[in-house]
């Protein structure tokens, strides 16, 4: 069935047809017709953010926490350019987003009209795909296709640029089922390769699962199958920052996060293993460290939906192109049909080696004196919130790494962090998106004071929509991660890494009508955290912590996994000039 309607109405209709319930946006001249349509309906809720960057990060948070694509709507020109950081962030972390931008009318494109920007040109490298729609008749088709592209294959952000005259004009609405597409990435893995992996699993003496965000993107079934596979094989498992929660942190085989600030046992297992099974991760430089020293003795298998991720940085022996859930299902089946064999004795030795590594207890720290250690703050936060229906966001910096180390994630979609781009200012708006998706959950953004200030205007959004997001700031009055690198790599010359002239966060919260809490005393920390949790509304928690704490373990850039620094005593001369050029 085809219907005639205006372009603006098509936008709303297509969103409804695609099951969208919330749009994060900010109006302006070039999207007024769409805002007019939004005003006249009740199916879709619009959340007015305070900055377009916030709209995109909120949509990302929503997408990560619900498994559905996030939608943002912004105006032309500055609205679109403000969305660029969020788009790039979503592209790096494979988050499905549909971003709609207004554009000047088609007959004015190219004339440097008011608020004109070459939005498709600017966003081409930071979207999975984008479109400028010049005819109203093509708008509905493009919208439906956009959802398909954003959510199929390796997910990612897409953008549709809609000129204002296209929004006003009337055209025919095309239903989603009538839209044809040629974009159809392969999901089933090659059975021969899968069998080869099963065979390798049977004889491996020192195997490890190295999992990543792809497991979470593949959907809950992928995490489910992964858990079955780990339980059935007894192999140890580690994960990247993006994959936390795909296997429970309380699970017996869990080694903790790996990578630059990963756990000793996880990195050592990666370095020494004889079979590495990469599931939905991409051998990022935060993970591999020095490439030529990366896990030198292992056979490497890689399951990924994106052919360009395979053999990009690390040469693999068993490449499997496909969707994680599909491949794991086949892998489990094949491995069981072949007798569900593993090298029990080899595995026992491997586990005893791993248990020796665990004894190093690389995350140990001492809370003493009257200053709160950031690790302690997170340990208490974990203890006091663990039983809740809890979602954690972070900003970027030391606090992010500590959160990854000291908080435990039992399920997928519970951990929202900017991994690939490392965007300060991501966490607060993301927490707003998460809370929109899960109104009754406890949503906490573990923040650094500097990052939090980058998108602090979203306090207005949290207040307006009564979103009880908890902003847990580990305030070290430093750009802590920058300071740490300056300490280790730049002769302790702390160039511009002090957070100067900080606001009074309690008063700041109150200025917005929110609740502010400050805590500097380890003795009162638990009570303060409880006060934050029980307060029904947004809270800004200013947790004053040790200012010069460093985040360990750390694999310095340019070093191998087994050259990890475990604590301050290790750091003198640890990093040589070669590593300093790396980021």
């Amino acid at each position, binding site marked *: 069935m085809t219907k005639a309607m205006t372009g603006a109405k098509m936008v709303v209709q297509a969103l409804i*047809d*695609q*099951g969208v319930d919330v749009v994060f946006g900010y109006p302006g001249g070039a999207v007024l017709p769409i805002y007019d349509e939004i005003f006249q309906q009740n199916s879709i809720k619009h959340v007015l953010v305070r900055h377009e960057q916030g709209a995109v990060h909120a949509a990302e948070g929503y997408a990560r926490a619900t498994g*559905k*694509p996030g939608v943002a709507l912004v105006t032309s020109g500055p609205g679109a350019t403000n969305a660029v950081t969020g788009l790039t962030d979503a592209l790096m972390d494979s988050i499905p987003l549909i971003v709609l931008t207004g554009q000047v009318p088609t007959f004015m494109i190219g004339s440097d009209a008011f608020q004109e920007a070459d939005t*498709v*040109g600017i966003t*081409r*490298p930071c979207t*999975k*795909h*984008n479109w*400028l729609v010049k005819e109203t008749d093509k708008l509905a088709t493009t919208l*439906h*296709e956009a*959802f*398909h*592209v954003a*959510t199929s*294959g*390796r997910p990612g952000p897409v953008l549709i640029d809609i000129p204002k005259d296209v929004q006003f004009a009337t055209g025919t609405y095309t*239903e*989603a*089922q*009538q*839209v*044809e*597409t*040629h*974009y*159809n*990435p*392969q999901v089933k893995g090659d059975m021969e390769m899968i069998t080869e992996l099963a065979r390798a699993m049977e004889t491996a003496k020192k195997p490890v699962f190295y999992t990543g965000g792809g497991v979470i993107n593949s959907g809950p079934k992928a995490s489910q199958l992964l858990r079955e596979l780990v339980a059935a094989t007894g192999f140890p498992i580690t994960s990247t920052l993006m994959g936390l929660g795909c296997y429970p942190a309380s699970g017996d085989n869990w080694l903790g996060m790996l990578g630059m600030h990963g756990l000793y046992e996880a990195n050592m297992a990666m370095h020494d293993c004889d079979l590495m099974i990469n599931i939905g991760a991409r051998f990022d430089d935060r993970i591999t460290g020095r490439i030529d020293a990366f896990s030198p003795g292992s056979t490497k298998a890689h399951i990924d939906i*994106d*052919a*360009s991720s*395979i*053999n*990009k940085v690390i*040469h693999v*022996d068993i*490449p499997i*192109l496909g969707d994680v859930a599909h491949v794991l299902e086949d892998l489990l089946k094949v491995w069981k049909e072949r007798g569900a064999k593993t090298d029990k004795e080899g595995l026992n030795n491997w586990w005893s080696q791993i248990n020796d590594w665990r004894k190093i207890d690389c995350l140990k720290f001492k809370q003493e004196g009257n200053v709160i250690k950031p690790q302690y703050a997170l340990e208490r936060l974990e203890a006091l919130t663990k039983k809740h229906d809890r979602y954690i966001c972070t900003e970027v910096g030391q606090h992010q790494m500590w959160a990854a180390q000291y908080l435990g994630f039992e399920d997928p979609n519970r951990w929202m962090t900017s991994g690939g781009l490392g965007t300060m200012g991501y966490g607060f708006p993301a927490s707003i998106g998460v809370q929109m998706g899960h109104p009754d959950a406890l949503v906490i953004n573990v923040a650094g004071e500097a990052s939090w200030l980058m998108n602090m205007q979203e306090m207005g959004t949290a207040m307006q929509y009564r979103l009880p997001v908890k902003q847990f700031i580990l305030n070290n009055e430093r750009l802590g991660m920058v300071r740490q690198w300056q300490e280790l790599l730049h002769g302790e010359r702390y160039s511009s890494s002090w957070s100067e002239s900080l606001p009074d966060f309690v008063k700041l919260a109150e200025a917005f009508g929110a609740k502010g809490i400050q805590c500097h005393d380890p003795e009162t920390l638990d009570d303060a955290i409880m006060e934050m949790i029980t307060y029904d509304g947004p809270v800004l928690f200013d947790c004053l912590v040790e200012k010069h704490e460093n985040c360990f373990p750390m694999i310095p850039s340019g070093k191998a996994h087994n050259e990890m620094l475990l604590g301050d005593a290790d750091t003198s001369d640890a990093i040589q000039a070669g590593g300093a050029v790396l980021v």
Partner: protein
Amino acid sequence: MSALKIKKGSTSHSAYNLRPNYSDTIERHTLAVLVENEPGVLARVIGLFSGRGYNIDSLTVAEVDHLGHRSRITIVTTGTPQVIEQIKAQLGRIVDVHKVNDLTVEGPSVERELALFKVVGTGDHRIEAIRLADIFRASVVDSTLESFVFEITGTSEKIDAFAELMQPLGLEEIARTGIAALARGHDS
């Protein structure tokens, strides 16, 4: 979400060899990329090369199927085998790309380029230019009393050789199309 109808024969099954044997030698490959003829598709392909630091030695593009809305981009690129594999995989994930063929590895292919040469001169130089053009099967498409425009088709090497010979004879300007290439035989 409502599902879309997925066109038959459009699945981007991997044509890439996922298990290559890499060496460090720099190779030159000719890639034929069949794309949806959409605005911006060329910008996507070029942006990919500049953004990721790949080389483009030659690039041609034109619509090849008006009804099917398809264009063909022929790219000649150089890189180590690993980089070439990356380039193909990266091209393959562009939503508007239907198919990537590596003509250099997928069996024999023919490559041709067309060029126009403006040669200015009189007397002996002029006579010698005409004589050489004849040997190279270049034809005269414009002439004045002091100049010729020659048209020549052939491999890039042939055109390079022609350019070298014309240099001392008053070669003033060259326009080259870049390479067009097809696999030999049928069923490519």
